[in-house]
């Protein structure tokens, strides 16, 4: 039988109201409060209830999450429910924070419910399933019912429908989908075009998402003392591609020693080449410095413009590589660079 664990705050965990919002996380081997309702509706059993004060989670999130993950380590469970949090902001954020952590640590589905006004929706809808819920606890049964019906569907292995049909907030996760009515793209395109011409409403199949912004790094004060690294998504690797970096949809990266190199030698000299499948490799194979400008960096090093060029360059392949993978690889490379006291990076892309 499927096993579920439910997360509640101090109020719904029947500890009390605002005065006990500092309540430390605990896990109980029983169904407390709404956990009873979950248990009634679930095709399975709620085995434990986790209770944590909203303020405790709010002001010690890392500690709270760690402790709760610790509670769960030796528990078997197939699904995790958090909330519903209605319009309670701190509770919503707590449900999101713990839900995200549980999903990442244990790879189980996590389902929550919040009112659309709850700030937890915006913060965590990408990370866990959040269903739109009522404003107050009067909607407890309705909200939990929606959550559990969806949970039952996941547990049964039934194929999940798009977000708009299942009802949870869109998570920014897009998959291809065969239309039931088989309307071909040419009909959809003409329909959209005529509506646009006539000033009628239409729905784009690819709504433009918000553009990411990144905090701007401070400028380097003294370049002549800085060690600078080269990083590329252009797929330049030693001729035998020792790290087996994929030619497209890469999940791996490599670092290659260049401390003794004035300029990168090419494919014919059996040194470096590109394994990137998204562009014509001829020019990069003939002179890899066109993609990873080791030669120019050495010149600036000799001239004293920069302190030094870092002894490794880092490489992966950009084509078809998902943003998540790229971000992960970027973080891993950054970690190494920081550990080695690198002040700046020139990233070349193709």
């Amino acid at each position: 039988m499927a096993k579920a664990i439910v997360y509640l705050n101090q109020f719904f965990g029947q500890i009390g109201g605002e005065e006990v919002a500092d309540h430390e996380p605990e896990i109980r081997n029983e169904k407390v409060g709404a956990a009873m309702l979950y248990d009634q509706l679930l095709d399975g059993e709620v085995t434990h209830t986790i209770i944590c004060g909203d303020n405790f989670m709010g002001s010690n999130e890392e500690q709270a999450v760690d402790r709760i993950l610790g509670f769960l380590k030796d528990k078997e469970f197939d699904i995790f429910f958090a909330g519903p949090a209605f319009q309670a902001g701190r509770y919503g954020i707590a449900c999101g924070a713990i839900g995200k952590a549980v999903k990442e640590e244990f790879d189980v589905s996590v389902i929550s419910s919040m009112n659309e006004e709850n700030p937890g929706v915006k913060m965590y809808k990408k990370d866990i399933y959040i269903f739109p819920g009522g404003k107050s606890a009067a909607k407890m049964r309705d909200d939990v019912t929606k959550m559990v019906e969806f949970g039952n569907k996941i547990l049964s292995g039934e194929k999940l429908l798009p977000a708009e049909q299942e009802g949870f907030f869109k998570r920014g996760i897009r998959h291809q989908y065969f239309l039931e009515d088989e309307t071909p793209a040419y009909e959809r395109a003409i329909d959209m075009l005529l509506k646009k011409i006539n000033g009628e409403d239409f729905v784009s199949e690819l709504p433009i998402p918000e553009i990411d912004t990144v905090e701007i790094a401070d400028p380097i004060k003294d370049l002549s003392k800085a060690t600078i690294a080269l990083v590329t998504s252009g797929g330049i690797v030693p001729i035998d591609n020792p790290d087996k970096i994929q030619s497209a949809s890469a999940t791996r990266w490599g670092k290659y020693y260049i401390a003794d190199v004035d300029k990168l030698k090419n494919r014919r000299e059996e040194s470096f080449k590109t394994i990137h499948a998204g562009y014509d490799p001829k020019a990069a194979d003939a002179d890899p410095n066109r993609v990873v400008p080791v030669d120019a960096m050495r010149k600036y090093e000799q001239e004293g413009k920069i302190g030094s060029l870092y002894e490794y360059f880092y490489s992966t392949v950009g084509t078809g590589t998902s943003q998540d993978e790229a971000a992960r690889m970027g973080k891993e490379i950054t970690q190494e660079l920081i550990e080695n006291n690198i002040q700046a990076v020139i990233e070349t892309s193709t």
Partner: protein
Amino acid sequence: MANLIPIAKTVGANRMVPTISIPYPLGDPSTSEEEQWKLRYHRVGVALNALTTDINEQTVFDVEV
């Protein structure tokens, strides 16, 4: 350093220096070795200067060669 500045902008790069193409960002094989070197040396230099420049929004740095 990227040729497709709109992509660099979209993914949130802050200091950007344009390169000349996708398959050969820093050296057009149809030009002489000298010209290629000049271009590469110049643009890498622009990138290095960009690292020392204080900016408050996404910035594309001008290149001359």
